Structure formats: C-alpha cells, structure tokens
C-alpha cells in the first residue's frame, strides 16, 4: 500500500490547464522529488494534496484511503514561507506542534532544540520581518520537520540558502530520514539536490503539466561525502537535465538575445 | 405596584414617579415646593422627580414608565384621542402661557398679518402651524409662511435674525430676553383668533388612577398645596425651586423670581373664583373644537377625527382638594 497515490490529477485556472492527468505514488518511507519548469504546476500539485485547492479531475489516496480534510497526515512547507508576522520566530517554529495539540511550552521546547542545528540560534525572540530570506526559509523548514509527521511535503525547502548551509541542511535531512523513515514528497529546482535526497525523481513538463520522466535513484548511491564524486549520480543528473530541457516551454530558443 | 399607605405614615412611604417635560423650570414649581416643604412626606409619599427625557411625557405615563407627569391640555387632547392612556388631573396654569414673538425692533411687524411670507422658527408641530395660520388669517392674511424646524435653537435664531418669529413661553424665554436687554414684541394667541387653553397641567393614566385612587388623591392634593404656596409666596417659592436644582438654576435667580411673580399674579397658577388647579370645561370644549376643525386630531388607527369626542373624559377634578 502506497503512502501516497495520486491518480489522474487535473487542475485548471480559468481557461488555463495547469495539471493534466498527473499520476504517481510515493511508497512508505521513500522520498520522491518533483522537478519541472518554473510555472509548470509543482506548487499547485502540493496545494491540491494539502486540500487548499480542489482538483478538477482525478483523486488521491493516503495509506490506501481517500483523505478527509483536517485528517491529512502531512507536514507541509509552502514555497513562500508563510510565517505569521504576529508570532515571534520561536512561536512560528512551534506552530505545527501546537496545532497538533502539543502544549505550548513543550512545543516551544521541542522547536527550540533545533534552532542551533538550523543555524538560526539566537533569533528565537525576533519577529519574522527581522530575518533574512534564507533564515525565514529555515524557520519554515524547522516548523515542518519538527512536527514529525509520517509524510513531508516540501516545496523548495532550500531555495534561498547558500551552498554551505544548504549542504548542511541536506545532510541533516538525510540523517533524520535515516532515523525516522518518513515518506517525503519534495519539490526542488536543483537537480543535484533531487538526486541526492530521493528514491525517485519525477519530471513535470511545462504547463499543462504531465509527468514526462521518472528516474529511480538507487539507495546504494552514497548520499554523504561520496555523493559529489559518484559517477552514477552524475549520470542520473545528466539524464534529468536532458528531461528537463525537453520539458521546458518553447521560448528558450529566442533567449540568446 | 405602590404599597397601600397606612394612615399613620410610619410605615414605608409609597413611591410615586413624576416626569418632567423639560429641564426644571417655574412650571414645575408646585411639585418642587411640595417636595421641599415636606408635603409629600406628610402624605406618606416618596416622590421621585424624573428629569426631562426626549420621550414625550404622555407616552411615559401611558406606558407606565411614570405615574404622573407634566402635560398640557393640547397634549392630552391629541394624545388621548390617539389612543394614549392619559388624563389630565391638575391644571398648573389656568390659561395660555405661550405667545408669538418677534424682535422688539421689527417695525415692519405690527400684527400677525405682517407675518405673511415670513420665516417661522418652529418646532415641527402641526398644532403650532395651525395656530400661526389661524392668527395670520384672523388678522386678514392668507396664512402663508415658511416653517423652519429649529426646536431648541429657535430663540438664538430669532435674536440673530435668521428667523422672523417664533413661539415663546411668556413666563420663561420672554423674561430672559427682557433680562438680556433684547425684549420681544409679542402677540397673544387669544387676541388673534385662538381659543384660550389651560396650557400647563399634570397628567396621569386611567390605569394608574384606577389602581391607586388614594395615592393619586394624596399626590394631587400635595401638588395643589405646592402651587398655592407658590402663588402666595412667589419669592420664597423661587428660592425653594433654585435650592432644589442648584446645578441647573443656580445663577438664574432673577429669571426664576420674575417668572414666578408673573405666574402668581396674572391668574395663571390661581384664578379668581376657581379651585386651584381645576379644569375649565369651556376651554377644553373650545380648544378641542379648534383641533377638530383644523384636522389635527387623529384616532387610534390614524384616521383624522371629524367629530369632537366627549372632552369631559379627558380631565378630572376628582383628585383635587376642594
């Protein structure tokens, strides 16, 4: 039984079809990444899974059953961080736990334990507006993973981070995945990141988005220190880049202006 | 409901509420005198004087929010016909106290006929409109004029010249104008075709009078004593009235005194040959006829009344001390 199985999802906004029959599944304890051109419908896909949007076609099941609202077992990290301006950074980070019924004190304590790991120690009492873009993103990620849900939906979790911080957080995520074996659906625009973190990478085409490629990544590939030099990983990256180039919309040709 | 009052007066006094029609003024003197000199207390009454509310007193009394209240003849005739449960139990003034006034320096206005086409600083009452029209017509005009509804601003409007005439209480605004050195030129309604009227009075409701005839008798008698005292001792009464209302009348001693002297001597509080506070059936008939003729009266269902009701139902002397 899949942790998540999506069948024939379709979504239109007015005249524009954004998703056009997207089907895939995420096996329990596995990581699936979605890459695709900007504007293809990746975030829309997640917004359907979280119940924010209703699909125009298709359906999906979690652990083999359709979900009812308020019962979704996801922890979701939106692309724009959606930090609440009226909560201090620590309270933002603890929000998911609080919503899950964890008492406030305890939620804050659990969230605060991760602040140093995420490189944002010392910002607990600041307001979100006082953080840099990358710091906001890290708070949003922290808020998501600290919930310890069995399935994570992450929309470009490392998009605003420098290479070093990104590397550190990727490794941290790999480590925590090793321990908890959460299922994950990860949206990213970084091919290398997709390969490194996933068991499977899906490639979406440009709008209207269909899945135009699936690449399995063997768990045997080293994800830690050896990753950058692994030839199989490089091969997969190259394959994905080609798929992505095919996925891209037309006007690229006119771009050399 | 009020407690029956034991004759001894030692027990709890009976509570009675009395509603004013305006901020305390000399029309209310008898009630305050009765209060200050202990007439109510002697009668075993605990009278609470309710201040002016924008709710018309007839509605307060009819609705049971007050047991008694100030209410003149015209109001009773209009209100009872319209279905309000009110009845006149005491007449504070035996005749009209209102007058039509213009500024004294208006040489162009010598009679109500000269008010033709002028601006009336009015109060939004069809009764007053009919009155002004009657006066102008009586003096040979057509009765055309413009009414500006000004309510309390009418006197300022008159003195600043933005209206040409208004209606004034001869024992209050007119005296104030004199004190301020800008006296009015006045026209008495009765001199210009209007029937006289017992302008100020006290009302209660049939419901209350039926339930508490004894309390009513004591209350009306005490009030009657109060007004009699005011008629006999206007200066003392003035002091009592001011003392009872230091916040509002303190500083207006001259106005109050002059007003009370007028009310005492001009046959207003008391008149020769009649019991103080009694009704004058003739005035009720004549004024009532005027109201019917001018189509001002409406019945409970809002239809204009064309046939005069039996005015004797509208007032009673039954509670007076004769």
């Amino acid at each position, binding site marked *: 039984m899949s942790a998540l199985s999506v069948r024939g999802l379709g979504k239109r906004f007015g005249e524009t079809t954004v998703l056009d029959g997207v089907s895939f599944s995420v096996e329990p304890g596995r990581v699936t990444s979605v890459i695709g051109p900007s504007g293809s419908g990746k975030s829309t896909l997640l917004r359907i899974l979280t119940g924010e949007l209703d699909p125009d076609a298709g359906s999906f099941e979690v652990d083999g059953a359709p979900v009812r609202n308020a019962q979704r077992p996801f922890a979701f990290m939106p692309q724009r961080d959606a930090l609440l301006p009226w909560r201090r950074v620590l309270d933002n980070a603890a929000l998911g736990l609080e919503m899950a019924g964890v008492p406030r004190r305890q939620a804050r304590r659990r969230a605060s334990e991760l602040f140093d790991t995420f490189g944002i120690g010392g910002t607990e009492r600041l307001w979100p507006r006082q953080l840099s873009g990358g710091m906001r993103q890290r708070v949003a990620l922290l808020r998501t993973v600290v919930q310890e849900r069995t399935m994570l939906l992450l929309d470009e979790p490392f998009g605003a981070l420098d290479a070093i911080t990104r590397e550190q957080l990727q490794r941290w995520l790999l480590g925590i995945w090793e321990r908890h074996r959460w299922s994950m659906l990860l949206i990213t625009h970084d091919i290398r990141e997709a390969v490194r973190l996933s068991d499977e990478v899906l490639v979406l085409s440009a709008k209207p988005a269909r899945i135009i490629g699936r690449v399995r990544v063997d768990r045997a590939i080293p994800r830690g220190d050896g990753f950058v030099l692994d030839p199989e990983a490089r091969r997969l990256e190259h394959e994905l880049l080609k798929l992505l180039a095919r996925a891209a919309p037309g006007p690229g040709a006119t771009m050399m202006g | 409901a009020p407690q029956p009052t034991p004759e001894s007066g030692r027990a709890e006094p009976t509570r009675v509420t009395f509603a004013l029609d305006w901020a305390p003024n000399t029309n209310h003197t008898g009630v305050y005198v009765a209060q200050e000199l202990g007439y109510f207390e002697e009668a075993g009454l605990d009278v609470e004087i309710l201040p002016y509310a924008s709710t*018309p007193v*007839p*509605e307060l009394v*009819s*609705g049971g929010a007050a047991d008694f209240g100030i209410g003149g003849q015209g109001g009773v005739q*209009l*209100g009872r016909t*319209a*279905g*309000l*449960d009110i009845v006149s139990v005491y007449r504070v003034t035996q005749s009209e106290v209102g007058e039509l006034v213009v500024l004294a320096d208006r040489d162009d206005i010598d009679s109500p006929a000269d008010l033709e086409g002028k*601006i009336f600083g009015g*109060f*939004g*009452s*069809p*009764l007053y409109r009919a009155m002004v029209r009657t006066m102008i017509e009586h003096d040979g005009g057509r009765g055309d004029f*413009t*009414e*500006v*509804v*000004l*309510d*309390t*601003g009418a006197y*300022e*409007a008159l003195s*600043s010249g*933005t209206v040409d005439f208004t209606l004034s209480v001869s024992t209050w605004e007119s005296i104030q104008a004199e004190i301020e050195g800008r006296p009015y030129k006045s026209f008495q309604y009765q001199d210009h075709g209007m029937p006289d009227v017992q302008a100020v009075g006290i009302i209660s409701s049939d419901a209350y009078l039926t339930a508490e005839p004894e309390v009513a008798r004591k209350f009306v008698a005490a009030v009657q004593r109060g007004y009699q005292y005011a008629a006999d001792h206007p200066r003392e009464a003035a002091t009592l009235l001011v003392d009872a209302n230091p916040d509002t009348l303190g500083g207006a001693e001259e106005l109050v005194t002059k007003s009370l002297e007028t009310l005492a001597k001009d046959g207003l509080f008391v008149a020769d040959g009649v019991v103080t506070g009694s009704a004058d059936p003739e005035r009720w008939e004549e004024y009532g006829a005027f109201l019917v003729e001018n189509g*001002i009266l*409406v019945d*409970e*269902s*809002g239809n204009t009344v064309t046939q005069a009701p039996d005015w004797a139902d509208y007032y009673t002397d039954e509670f007076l001390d004769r």
Partner: protein
Amino acid sequence: MTRRLRAHWPPVAAAVLLLGAWHAVAVSGMLPATVLPTPVRVVEQVWLQREALLGHALPTLTATVLGFALSVASAVVIATALDFSALLRRAVLPLLVVSQTLPMIALAPLVVLWFGFYLLPKVLLVAFLTFFPMTISLLRGFAAADPDMQALLRSMGAGRWGVFRHVRAPSAAPYFFSGLRVSITYAVVGAIFAEYAGAVAGLGVYMQSAKNVFRTDLVLAAVLVSSIVTLLLYALVVALEHLLLPWLRVERGLP
C-alpha cells in the same frame, strides 16, 4: 432555486423573521399601538403618504449625497496631508478626535444659525458626522503599507508622492472602504439629525411633526424610507469596491 434567489434568500428570510417578531410584539398588547404599530400598518402608511414621504426624502437624499461627497473629499485630503507630515499629524489628529467628541446635539443649532436652514448646514453636518471613520481608516491603511514595496519605489527614484500614490494609497484602499461602509451608514442618519436641528423639509422634519401628534406609525414610515435609502447607498459602496478593487478578491484567494 435560481442563483439569484439563492443569493438573496438569507437576508430576506432574516428580514421576514424580524418583521414577524415585531408584528408579534405589536399585536401582543405589551405596548399600545400608538407606541408600536404593526409593520403592516407602517408599510400601509408608506404607501398612503408616498407623496409627502417622497417630497421629504428628496431634500434628505440631496443633503446626504452632497454631504457625503464633501466628507469623502475632506477625509482623503486630510488623511493625505496628515500622512505626509508627522508634525501635522501630531498637531491635528488630536483636534480631529476632539471635534468628534463635540456633542452635536448641543452644537447643531449653532451651525444652523451660521449657515441658514437650507442645504448648507445639512451638508456640513453630514460631512462632519461622517468624515472621521474614513480619515482614521485611511491613516491606518497608509501605515499598513509594506516597507519592502516602499523601498522598491524609492529605489526607482520615486519621491514621497510617488511612494504615496503607488504604494501607500493602494494599501489603504481596503481600509478606506471599510471606513466608507461605516460612514455611508451614518450619512442618512446624520442628515436626519441635522434636520432635527433646523430645516424646512426632509425626513427629519417629517418625523418630528409626526411625533408631535403621536403618530408613531408615520415616524416609522419615515424611518423605513430612510433605511431603504441607506441600504441602497450601502449597496452602491459595496458594488463600487468590487469594481474598483478587482485585485482584492484575487489577493484573498477568492475566485
């Protein structure tokens, strides 16, 4: 059920419920008919007195519309001026607050004395009684503007006026319309109030006359007319907002 019907039944149902309750109280005998006539009777009177009511509604409507136009204009001008100068804001805002604390019931007669009985004092009073909610809302809305957007505009060489026009003013739009809804609601009441203080015609004059002869049914007939007028004006404001701020629905994730 057609869509139109579906959109309109809740307010209609609520209104019917309320009228039913009113009717029940009116015929219960708790209050005499002179104090509380039945709704049927009031509607009847609106019809019977339609000419008089129309004649009195027109001056009230004129005063309302002119006064409100003046009010919106003043609110915009004042709030803009105060937004541009912190000094002015500190100096003038307390005075504006004080101005709203003046009990008009005591001062309206003076206004009438100064400006006569016709349109002008009514227009002024309506403007005076309604500009405040809009001014406060606008000031709050200006202040709610995103600092990032303002910084962007400044980086483009926009002066204070450019930043105001392109960021602060649009940010204030939703606030402004919330003030507008409050104000338009007060405008008709304000005009009627002004008529109580001094006027030759208008619904306020009509109410006062009716009240003086204990015709509560006519008072309520005039109240009914004034309510309908206000509701129409309110609906106009809502429609205007829809028209002028198309982006707001998108921002809020509405279809």
